């Protein structure tokens, strides 16, 4: 019998998004990636998304996390340590799932996701990756998306998850407003990126809580959008810093004339992250708000306000980095390969924004239906 994961389009579509996100930095960045690690991560991604049983999928996700840690260790020991801790939590979830401790598996899986996506206060590792190894951070986002997929598929379908849902939704909502506020007072580009990452992590956590109420597809779209928008923003940030060094708000802005394409891509990714209409961010935010409402209207309001604050911070950042008296630069604008990497992610964001049903329909059918089968076949 052919496993359901192979016949449903959802895992394939998630795999396509993950591969794009994994390959885009390799195409765009001048930094050499370790090819063996990249091949290993791709293999683990496939194994995570298509594994027939939960424990196997979690083991693959844990190995992927360790591979990312290996890639990060030379530049960010904190980041590498957090990825190792995440791998331990994921492995714990695999064991708990194997032993039928579903609630334990759910909690460990949530914690692993919180560490991987930089939810406060477990964000020290991801923040360090953002500061010191941006490419590794971007490349670990696809396997975080795959981990969300596994979480939704294998551990989010039982009474324990349902009982914990209200708490997780509320915690997630609170953890969006804190980094959104912090984003307002950042003084450099990486600071905004860190805050933005933490805020999206909080949104994802809230979405995972609400997913237990049969809103699996919403959580998946939030994860994919987060990956694409933050990944694209990270790429543009790296490209800019390769040209002008670390970017402080207090320094001269005015880079839009020297780097118009980079500025345009920065705007698109930044806006997609805060729900620009026409991008996946808009649909993801809308869907998330409706699903959160079922659990907690106050959390919905909190997430809306957080998103508004982050939008303001993003525009402030854009204004201070790119606008102002024209700065002279001999560095070129986005090179073709950087533009291609960015364009790939932009196309995905637009496709998922205009026809979100292509991912959400199959994903909803697959994740809603597969839970029972997966549990029984564990």
């Amino acid at each position, binding site marked *: 019998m052919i496993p359901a994961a192979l016949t449903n389009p959802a895992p394939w579509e998630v795999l396509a998004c993950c591969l794009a996100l994994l390959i885009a930095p390799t195409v765009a960045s001048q930094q050499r990636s370790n090819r063996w690690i990249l091949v290993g991560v791709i293999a683990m991604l496939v194994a995570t998304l298509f594994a027939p049983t939960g424990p196997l999928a979690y083991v693959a996700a844990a190995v992927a996390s360790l591979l990312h840690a290996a890639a990060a260790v030379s530049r960010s020991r904190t980041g590498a340590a957090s990825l190792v801790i995440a791998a331990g939590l994921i492995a714990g979830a695999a064991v708990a799932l194997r032993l039928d401790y579903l609630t334990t598996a759910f909690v460990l899986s949530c914690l692993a996701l919180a560490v991987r996506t930089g939810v406060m206060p477990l964000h020290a590792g991801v923040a*360090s990756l953002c500061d010191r190894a941006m490419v590794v951070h971007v490349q670990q986002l696809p396997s975080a998306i795959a981990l969300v997929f596994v979480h939704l598929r294998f551990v989010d379908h039982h009474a324990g998850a349902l009982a914990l849902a209200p708490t997780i939704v509320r915690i997630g909502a609170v953890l969006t407003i804190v980094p959104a506020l912090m984003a307002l007072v950042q003084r450099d580009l990486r600071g905004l990126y860190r805050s933005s990452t933490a805020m999206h992590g909080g949104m994802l956590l809230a979405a995972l809580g609400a997913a237990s109420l049969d809103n699996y597809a919403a959580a998946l779209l939030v994860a994919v959008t987060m990956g694409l928008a933050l990944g694209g923003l990270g790429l543009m940030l790296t490209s800019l810093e390769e040209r002008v060094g670390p970017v402080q708000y207090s320094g001269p802005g005015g880079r839009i004339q020297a780097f*118009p394409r980079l500025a345009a891509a920065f705007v698109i990714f930044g806006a997609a992250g805060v729900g620009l209409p026409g991008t996946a961010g808009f649909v993801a935010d809308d869907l998330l*708000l*409706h699903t959160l409402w079922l659990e907690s209207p106050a959390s919905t*309001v909190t997430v809306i306000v957080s998103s508004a604050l982050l939008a303001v911070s993003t525009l402030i950042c854009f204004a201070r980095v790119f606008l*102002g008296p024209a700065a002279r630069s001999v560095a070129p604008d986005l090179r073709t390969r950087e533009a291609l990497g960015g*364009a790939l992610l932009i196309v995905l964001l637009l496709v998922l924004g205009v026809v*979100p*049903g292509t991912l*959400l329909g199959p994903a909803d059918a697959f994740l809603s239906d597969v839970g029972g089968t997966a549990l029984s076949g564990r």
Partner: protein
Amino acid sequence: MSELLAFALAVTVLAPLASVTVVGFRVLLGTRPASESFAAVVIGAGLVLSMIGGMTTLACFAGLGGAPLRGEVEFGDWLRLNDFEIPAVLLVDFISVTLSLLAAVLTALVARFSRTYLHKEPGFVRFFVLLGIFATGTQLIALAGALELFFAGWEMVGISSALFIGFFHERAEPVRSAVRAFATYRLSDTGLLIATVTTFELLGSARFSVMEQAATLGPGATTAIALLFLLSAMGKSAQLPFSGWLPRAMEGPTPSSALFYGAVSIHAGLFLLLRVWPVLEASLVARVAGVIVGLATALYAAGVVRVHTDAKGTLAHATLAQVGLILAEICLGWIELALVHLVCHALLRLGQYLKAPNLIHDSHRMGHEHRHPSLLERRAPQLAGRLYAASLHRLRLDDRIDVAFSPVLRLAAMLDRADRRLRGSLSLDGVPE
């Protein structure tokens, strides 16, 4: 005939979007900068097509060549997931057709005007891309049959508006003004977003056609939703206390000021209230609040307009005064009057704004008229002096909002310091300064 209407509606909304996409990808992927003529022709074609679509829609609505076609036109679902739907539905009625055609014609006119006005301006291509985004947004606002689509258009107008204000980004002031306008928009938009989610959850749909059922929700829920709509309208239409961004918005190029703050965008908040009128009608509290806000804004703007000496600033406050009056008319239930007032006001202001650069030339040619003291200045000079000073400082609205917002910034700074300490204590590599 109904197929023609659906096609016309689709063209009206999508033609500007398609033209923006073409120019956008050319800018992003092209090896050389896009030329002025390329951007102007492609975006212009999108705007003309949109205008033709709007006229065809009007013809179908009026019943030229068949029975009049009105009501919702379905284009399937943007998204459907279990009980949740974001319908791709457009609404054809008197209000939507009026605003759609008005916006399409005025945007196309401004595009033609700008092609000459902004010739050889460094941001020419950017201007036309933003114009295309704005056109798509206004058509969505005008024709949307559900709040989600409406909100999509609302956001597109907000983003393009902020980027237009900061168009001359080499100077610091336009950039600051753009950020302030966007912050006002985005924070007041939270009202619309919360109202959208609430309406969907309480009424089972966010289509405008279900707004009639708002009265069944009970006074508390109806008033809350109506006040949220009002909050959003106040932000978008620069009503008190959010009026501070409008004069700052005059930093943008004159054609965009004309289109946004004279003709179309400034009236978007009023259009929202016209669209959700059944909800507003069911809430006396919201209507009274709307009348008070509208009249207060009109008074404030009338005071400020008397002391302003720059052409666009004067026009901005004159616009604000009229918009305040239209808001009061809507909340008083004078819907038809408000709609006529809105259309006439948009047309008048567009002409005045576009002519503003000639005003100095005209005033030199025609001479200045000596201003006689008003009755208040003769009878109560001290009070008149105080009012003059208050108007000159625009009631220090922006300062007051900054003061009100400062505790939030202090809290944010405190959280940031705590976060740095936490990361510092957990980090193996140290935290960069």
